[in-house]
């Protein structure tokens, strides 16, 4: 074994100003942050860590994927479910408030050149997929996004989140909007042998996408989320279990550093 050439870990800190923070569906918020430096740096699938409060509660930062960035105007958007102490704190942020950010974190995702990209999203899992459609012309022109939510109340207005012209199909568990059933039901009719699938959403949904694509012999990547202490590889807390480990100490890999996008067929769901 030779000395490891460690990819240097670099990211920055920026004080962002809240430009907008509003509900886009039941329990789902969209926040626009003015942070010119990070807006110029973030790439699809990367995330930022937000200090939701400058005190000790919540103690840790919270990771958020990027929905869309306007590099000229110097802002980017995040979308978040209000589910815990950190996001409840974030929900109260008003226009003009300052938030301390770290980023960009995680590896950027670049889709393969050949074949169509089929994106399968659940809930706020749409975020990194939407950013990819904004940033990547080929994905926007030839790809398709399947969006699942529990109900129409939980389904944000997709036209407001996605670029014009992107092909989209929706599903709701209760049938109140789009296909009545799981979004995974729509994969077969939207894929051919050359399709690459990229998924992000609830664990159960991504596990099902991995299973279906494995059966169909399709390449599948998943953009994972996890509880994180640091978000930059130091705490080794946000690990996910991989199959066929090369080495014992590589059985678990960090979502924050090696991910967030992983080969969906290499991990233990």
């Amino acid at each position, binding site marked *: *074994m*030779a*000395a*490891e050439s*460690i*990819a*240097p*870990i*670099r*990211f*920055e*800190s*920026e*004080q962002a100003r809240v430009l907008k923070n509003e509900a886009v569906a039941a329990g789902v918020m969209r926040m626009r942050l003015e942070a010119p*430096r990070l807006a110029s740096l973030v790439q699809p699938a990367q995330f930022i860590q937000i*200090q939701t409060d*400058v*005190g*000790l*509660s*919540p*103690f*840790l*930062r919270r990771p958020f994927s990027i929905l869309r960035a306007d590099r000229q105007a110097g802002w980017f958007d995040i979308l978040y479910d209000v589910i815990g102490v950190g996001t409840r704190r974030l929900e109260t942020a008003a226009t003009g408030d300052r938030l*301390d950010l*770290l980023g960009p974190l995680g590896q950027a995702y670049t889709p393969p050149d050949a074949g169509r990209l089929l994106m399968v999203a659940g809930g706020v899992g749409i975020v990194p997929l939407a950013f990819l459609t904004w940033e990547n012309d080929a994905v926007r022109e030839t790809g398709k996004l399947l969006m699942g939510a529990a109900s129409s109340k939980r389904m944000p207005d997709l036209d407001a989140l996605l670029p014009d012209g992107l092909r989209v199909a929706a599903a709701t568990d209760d049938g109140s909007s789009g296909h009545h059933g799981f979004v995974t039901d729509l994969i077969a009719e939207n894929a051919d042998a050359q399709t690459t699938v990229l998924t992000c959403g609830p664990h159960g949904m991504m596990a099902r996408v991995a299973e279906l694509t494995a059966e169909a012999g399709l390449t599948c990547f998943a953009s994972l989320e*996890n*509880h*994180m*202490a*640091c978000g*930059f*590889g*130091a*705490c*080794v*807390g*946000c*690990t*996910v*279990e991989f199959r066929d*480990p090369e*080495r*014992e*100490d*590589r*059985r*678990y890999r960090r979502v924050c550093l090696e991910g967030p996008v992983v080969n969906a067929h290499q991990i233990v769901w």
Partner: protein
Amino acid sequence: MAVARSRFLLSSCLAHGRLTAFPLEHNDFRRSLFANLESPAPDVDLTTSICGLELRNPVMMASGTFGHAAEYAGLVDLSRLGGVVTKTITRHPRAGNPPPRTAETPSGMLNSIGLTNPGLEGFVAEKLPLLAELPTSVVVSIAGTSSEEFAEMAKAFDGRPGVDALELNISSPNMKDGGMLFGCRESSAREVTEAVKRATSLPVIVKLTPNVTDIVAIASAVEEGGADGIAMINTLLGMAIDVDSRRSILGNVTGGLSGPAIRPVALAMVWKVASRVSIPVFGMGGIQTAEDALAFLIAGASAVQVGTATFVDPWAAVEIVDGIADYCSRNELLLGDLVGSLDAGP
């Protein structure tokens, strides 16, 4: 107390007129990008010589919170730090514990990482060559399943460029086959220390667990065993439960508590131990700001380690260095005057 008197260059400081560059009132540790690089610290000499280590200042990165340091050399200016302690290395590679591995708790967090590491051979081949190039002191943390294994590992680092000292992790609550077991009994703590001291000429720092009845007795035992220094405290055994699922939040059920929540416990233990042993103490436990670090120094720690704070602010340790310099400058104190200066009288 085996601490060299630091020289304090007040005249040069005044000449530069930079005495108030870093206000100590900084509890929210917010910071503009690279503030530490834009505003030079006061010219205060914080160098210190502790158990054979020549440190630029008394602030180090704690084990398990900064990887093997080399990967962050482009992020944090390591030349500003007193030193770094690597993530703990074991004889064989360890994958670590099943997730979830962290849980946020009031003013802190639990972890059950489980000493994920590439093992001795992997570390020596892949990581060690990079450590020799770092512009700061490097302490390698090791853990074993027996005194013999601790000694074997210590021997493997003897004379290796890039290793300035060893820290014996006899205090991890996340290692079933060793770890804290050694640090909970005086006899085993002494025995491990003796075995390692026989195997290496490197300075040996023993890291203690707070999960004991009498930490002073354990500290005295490792001092008798020949330890050059004591690092304390490791995490407190802790747990968090999800009442909906009625399961522990951590995959390993229990874990170690760190962060500001444990700071008062750590401070009292450091004070007790530093008052009773004659070897230097590296104090740690929830240090987030210069004020926190100063409290540990005043309690008797010769140096401090910053750990969990790095997760929230990777530049926290550098800011702490600047804050200590500013405090010494404002109060016209040498680092040596500060260490153990607690007025514990009525």
